[in-house]
């Protein structure tokens, strides 16, 4: 093997160093476990606390909690190893636990552990619409990452569109950084949110955070329009403007309400898609959450259905940073206990479980207040691209259903190629599933989403690096064919 092994074996490998993973790693290390905190990024913090070296945290929320976790990281440095720049591409089972394979600096690294905590977060859920592939159209998360990670403002005149509480946060950040935000266009009607007073009252901090963003928008005279959507982006080589329209409760365009708006940038977000490649590789059960995303199923102890696998943060249900911290702490406590470190204090667990319950209710209330409604399908044109990697249009997807008789998204993928390109359906998987299901007048099922979500290789990986781990690459062990247990070989060519 030319692959090298990062120090270990560890009691615990925590995959992802955002709020959930950081909390899990620090909590488990504090309980005495030997922990590897593995993350593709150069610094801990994940997307939520994405920052630059020397960042003072002025533009961040919950920075104090982040500071505490960073101190925890330093305090337990003896048994908590942060492995930055490690992109996990596969986690498999071994006799004694797990082997996590990463790509680091052009080499393969292997992290051995007894248990794993998967905290790989989520990315922006994208819906196609005419013009969405034009340069200048960003995901809301992408625009924010650019700002937080590089201090770059995505454009000069920016429209922010989609649905969910993330939009005001992104818009406020952009406005504070000096961009002219021409408007926040929220397709939903979040007023329904305040009709769930109990849930809201139990999470005052979250609510204050949201109100803070809205105040910032007000101060910068950024209009926040509900039941309004960007239904098309225009431009030849890049975005020069968008069409904004009023939509009804099902997100159908109110006829005559369309108007053009000039802008050079559009940031769009329709919620999030959890990254569940690793739980799927490990055989964890998944389910369709109330926001329509496929998530890995976690039990009360944050365990996945596969033994030794713990889940924290968006992978087991999109709920934001505060919930991720709580789930991370719980996962860290239980995982540490399971690998023989300190037994979790029942009082602490009870307190965390109560907090998790309240936070999950809050998340659920948000999901109910900001659902994706099927009317967006009506914004599409036959020539609108669904899969940008393979340039598959709505027309082609429709034909796979009507002409060739496909009834599920995986079959549509196999007939018409959406999801077969570079991103392997990360971007278009959800939209394709919705589009196909809508043709039969229903919503996409968990089974259908699953058929688009399994990826045995979680990150594109140079073949040379994969091959370097082949024992046959060592001339001593000879070449030979791929193992075939059996005796009556006809040894015909592989095909």
């Amino acid at each position, binding site marked *: 093997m030319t692959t090298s092994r990062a120090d270990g074996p560890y009691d615990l490998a925590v995959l992802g160093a955002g709020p959930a993973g950081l909390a899990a790693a620090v909590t488990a290390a504090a309980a005495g476990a030997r922990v590897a905190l593995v993350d593709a990024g150069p610094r801990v913090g994940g997307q939520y606390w994405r920052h630059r070296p020397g960042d003072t945290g002025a533009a961040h929320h919950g920075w104090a909690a982040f500071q505490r976790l960073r101190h925890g990281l330093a305090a337990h440095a003896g048994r908590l190893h942060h492995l930055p720049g490690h992109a996990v591409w596969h986690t498999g089972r071994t006799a004694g636990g797990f082997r996590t394979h990463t790509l680091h600096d052009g080499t393969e690294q292997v992290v051995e552990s007894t248990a794993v905590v998967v905290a790989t977060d989520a990315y922006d859920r994208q819906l196609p619409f005419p013009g969405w592939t034009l340069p200048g159209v960003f995901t809301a998360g992408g625009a924010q990452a650019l700002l937080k990670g590089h201090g770059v403002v995505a454009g000069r005149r920016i429209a922010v569109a989609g649905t969910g509480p993330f939009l005001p946060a992104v818009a406020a950040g952009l406005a504070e950084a000096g961009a002219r935000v021409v408007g926040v266009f929220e397709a939903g009607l979040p007023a329904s949110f305040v009709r769930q007073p109990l849930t809201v009252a139990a999470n005052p901090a979250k609510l204050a955070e949201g109100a803070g963003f809205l105040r910032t928008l007000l101060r910068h005279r950024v209009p926040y329009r509900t039941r309004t959507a960007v239904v098309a982006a225009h431009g030849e080589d890049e975005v020069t403007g968008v069409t904004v329209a009023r939509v009804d409760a099902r997100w159908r365009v109110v006829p005559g309400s369309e108007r053009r708006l000039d802008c050079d940038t559009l940031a769009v977000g329709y919620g999030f898609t959890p990254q569940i490649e690793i739980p799927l590789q490990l055989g964890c059960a998944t389910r369709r959450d109330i926001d329509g995303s496929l998530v890995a199923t976690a039990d009360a102890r944050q365990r996945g259905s596969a033994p030794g696998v713990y889940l924290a943060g968006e992978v087991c249900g999109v709920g934001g940073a505060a919930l991720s911290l709580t789930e991370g702490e719980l996962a860290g406590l239980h995982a540490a206990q399971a690998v023989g470190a300190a037994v979790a204090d029942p009082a602490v667990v009870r307190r965390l479980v109560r907090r998790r319950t309240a936070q999950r209710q809050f998340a659920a209330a948000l999901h109910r207040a900001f659902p994706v409604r099927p009317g967006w399908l009506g914004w599409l044109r036959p020539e609108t691209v669904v899969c940008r990697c393979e340039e598959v249009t709505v027309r082609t997807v429709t034909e796979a259903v009507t002409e060739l008789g496909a009834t*599920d998204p995986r079959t549509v993928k196999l007939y018409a190629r959406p999801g077969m390109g570079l991103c392997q359906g990360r971007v278009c998987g959800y939209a394709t599933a919705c589009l196909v299901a809508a043709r039969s007048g229903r919503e996409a099922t968990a089974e259908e989403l699953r058929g688009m979500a399994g*990826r045995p290789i979680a990150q594109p990986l140079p073949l040379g690096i994969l091959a370097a781990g082949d024992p046959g690459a060592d001339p001593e062990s000879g*070449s030979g064919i791929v193992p075939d247990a059996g005796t009556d070989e006809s040894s015909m060519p592989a095909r």
Partner: protein
Amino acid sequence: MVGAACAYHCTSAGLRVTVVERGAIGGATTAACEGNILLSDKEPGAELELALLSSRLWARTAQALGAERLEYQEKGGVMVAASPATADGLRKLTAVQRAAGIDAVDVSRDEVTGLEPNITPEVAAGAYYPQDCQVQPVLATARLLRHAREHGATVLPGTAVTGFVRDSRGAVTGVRTDSATAPLIPAGRVVNAAGTWGGELAGLAGVPLPILPRKGFILVTEPLPRVVRHKVYTAEYVANVASGDAGLQTSVVVEGTRAGTVLIGASRERVGFDRSVSLPVLRRLAAQAIGVFPFLAEVALLRSYLGFRPYCPDHLPVIGADPRAPGLLHACGHEGAGIGLSAATGHLIAQVITGAAPDLDLAPFRPERFEETTV
């Protein structure tokens, strides 16, 4: 694929057909292969006869339905030998193949490089097989079934066969399904085209058929410009072809696709229906592919997928009427060549049902052969 080919050829022969599929059309093993229609990997014998017929029928089908719509490509195959000794064995093989009707062209080292400019310089010689083709198998399955539907066939996806209907003399007269709307489908003949599950299905009719899964992985790279032009594989060693046990041991297969991705296949393991991903197998495939095309070392792997070839102990498919269950025919067990062999299989099944004289002797493929004791 095989069931669709049966439906296509049977409807074309004027038969009324219902296709019962428990999953999605083309979603099982057919979705997990490379879609090659090959002659280059065959040695003289019953399978080659079947492959030669199939190759002709595929060309005809592609012409009838539109090659583009099936992504049918006459891309040609190139077999390369790394050492002079292997090259020697390859020459013997091609001579035998030519005698059996395969268009096998011996090519020099320079000619190999001409055919595949990016190939490793460590090539002694090769063989070129212009008849080797490729289809997009799932698309082809859908297109054949669409044609069958237009000719009166009914296609029932998401419907599993759960048993057989028999008359008083034991003849098969239809199937039972798990569908609420079509729980019983009467039929004069039932064709078992259940691939790797063909043995299971035959079992429901009380006739044993030893079809077992043989797992295979394929690697898919990022899209590239046209860097691999043919289907390329290595003749790692060619044993004494002239002697009966022509053991042609070949390893990796590398080919470009219309979409630009390069497919690297395929492993063979007998591990039952185990869907787990085996990194050692993926590593070996990657290493062997780089051995043939060194530039691949820098190319990104996007994904891998896997499937289970339906194989019989003698590595021949099961095609034809089953004397143990009158009314039941089999068309399964095609192992690593079900796409290629599907056209001939469908055609022969249609001939058997319509009572026409089969174009080929079906004896080597008879379903009851595994129960016969050799005296």
